[in-house]
């Protein structure tokens, strides 16, 4: 995946936002549900857990809801939405000639450091998303557009958490 031709620039953010808003509206208009991402990953994980150690699923109430008895955790619309999201990213990346194996980071840290941070940040994200019952897509974006009070409070909390610690991680990104 070399960059034989130059990658196309990203869309103007307001245009991208308008397109995203229309997709979000159509999701609500047609299906009644918004968008999401962490739910699909969650169910994928529960599926693997259920294959490896089904007894464990039956001991944890939280997991039981998704995979107890004969219910298949992958039998959910959110899983298909998530698979679609990955394919959509792939299509758009190919059309924009932006497919490239790389690690994005600031110049002052090594790839290894960046990967450790990515894992730690991902773990915090995954944990927080379950606690908040949704991630940036499912809570902030979708819940925000339908005016849920909790989603707006959540959204401010995400920005507050990131801005509060941004100074301490400035070397990683700048």
């Amino acid at each position: 995946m070399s960059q034989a031709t130059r990658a196309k620039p990203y869309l103007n953010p307001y245009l991208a936002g308008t397109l995203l808003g229309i997709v979000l509206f159509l999701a609500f208009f047609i299906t009644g549900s918004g968008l999401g991402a962490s739910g699909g990953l969650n169910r994928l994980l529960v599926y693997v857990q259920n294959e490896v150690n089904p007894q464990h699923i039956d001991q944890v109430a939280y997991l039981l809801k998704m995979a107890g008895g004969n219910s298949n955790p992958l039998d959910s619309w959110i899983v298909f939405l998530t698979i679609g999201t990955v394919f959509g990213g792939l299509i758009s990346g190919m059309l924009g000639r932006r497919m490239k194996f790389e690690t994005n980071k600031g110049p002052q840290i090594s790839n290894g450091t960046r990967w450790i941070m990515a894992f730690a940040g991902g773990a915090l994200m995954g944990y927080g998303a379950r606690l908040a019952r949704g991630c940036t897509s499912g809570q902030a974006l979708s819940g925000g557009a339908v005016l849920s009070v909790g989603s707006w409070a959540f959204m401010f909390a995400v920005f507050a958490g990131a801005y509060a610690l941004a100074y301490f991680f400035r070397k990683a990104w700048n």
Partner: protein
Amino acid sequence: MANFPLPLADLLGHWGSYAVYAVIGIAFGMTLESAGFGNSKLLAAQFYFKDMRVFKVMFTAIIVAMTLIFLSSALGLLDYNLIWVPPTYLWPGIVGGLIMGVGFIVGGFCPGTSLVGLATGKLDAFVFVLGVLFGIYMFGETVDSFATFFESSNMGRFTLPELFNASYGVVVISIVVAALALFVIAEKVEAMVNDTPQQRMPGWLKPAAGGLIALAAVVLLIGQPSNEDRWQAVADESEAKLKERAVQISSAEFIKYRDDSKIKIIPLDVREERYYNQFHISGAVHVPLDQVQAKAKELQFEAANTIFVTISNDEAAATEAWKILKAESVPNIYILEGGINAWLKTYAGDSISDEQRLYNRQEDQMAYKFNAATGSRHPAAEPSPHLLDLEYEPKVILELKRAPTSGGCG
């Protein structure tokens, strides 16, 4: 009534509906990637005020989607009651949000953006996704130790217009105007931090912003449909059902579902409090007629196998309540045939004496006199059906619930 959202599973079948979600997912992934959200460095730049793309894209999406949702609801195309509004669990949401904020600045992605990063070959996105899976795993392992907190401050379906006691139109237009003002500020901040002249905006931007404000103004002017408007939209079909007595279920059918472990039955007693105190059916929830509409959104959260039955002394108030709930799109809603009076006549037997009987009474008054508030301690409150094997005409048809019971994160 509003035809949207569509009952996808009815129209396309189980797997057919999943195909629709996959297509929506593809569109979602394409817009995220083309917005630059597959690139962690670009995402993190938000928090150093260098490139406020995250804020701009996200808030543009929110104001566009919000305006279109409430516009289509105002025009009667979309039923807002059948839209998934994430329930508010205030403190778990805020604490989870703070943890995610930290995760954002450390890891550089959020779950959705990491998926498109992964799809375009970003190795840090791949590692991030592994981290997310680990975090979700750890949550499943530890949630039992703070289950009380996780379930705390549950305010149900709670919206900003309800919080501020303002109309949906006022809130929508305020958010649109505030977001547009913040975009102007964001452009100035970026130029200042990067020490570059302000970027030139494409020519369509100002008219588009004006158009959005105009649409929000239309939302404000039309207003959201009232319970009366909503009833008008379903009145013909529903009046016919009432007339055919297709929704008045007999007490025998009520008891059958009460004893069916696969069905949850919620009796809604809409009578005045004094009647409710004198006698009510075991398990009946007291919801006076003037509170029925407010109760509707709570009922939407019940599982799909729930049947609601409105109850009054005869049928008049129960029918009123049925109409209100029907208009609010509450599924599987029925009326107890003959109300409490018919119930007592069937099941009270010897436990009610002849002196308790009232002969000159008005419509929807109680036909029996109770000298004490027996509530549900009266023997007739929980009759055993096998004592009387009553014949009945089955009327309940469980409809597939159209309102989603979980959002994109379940």
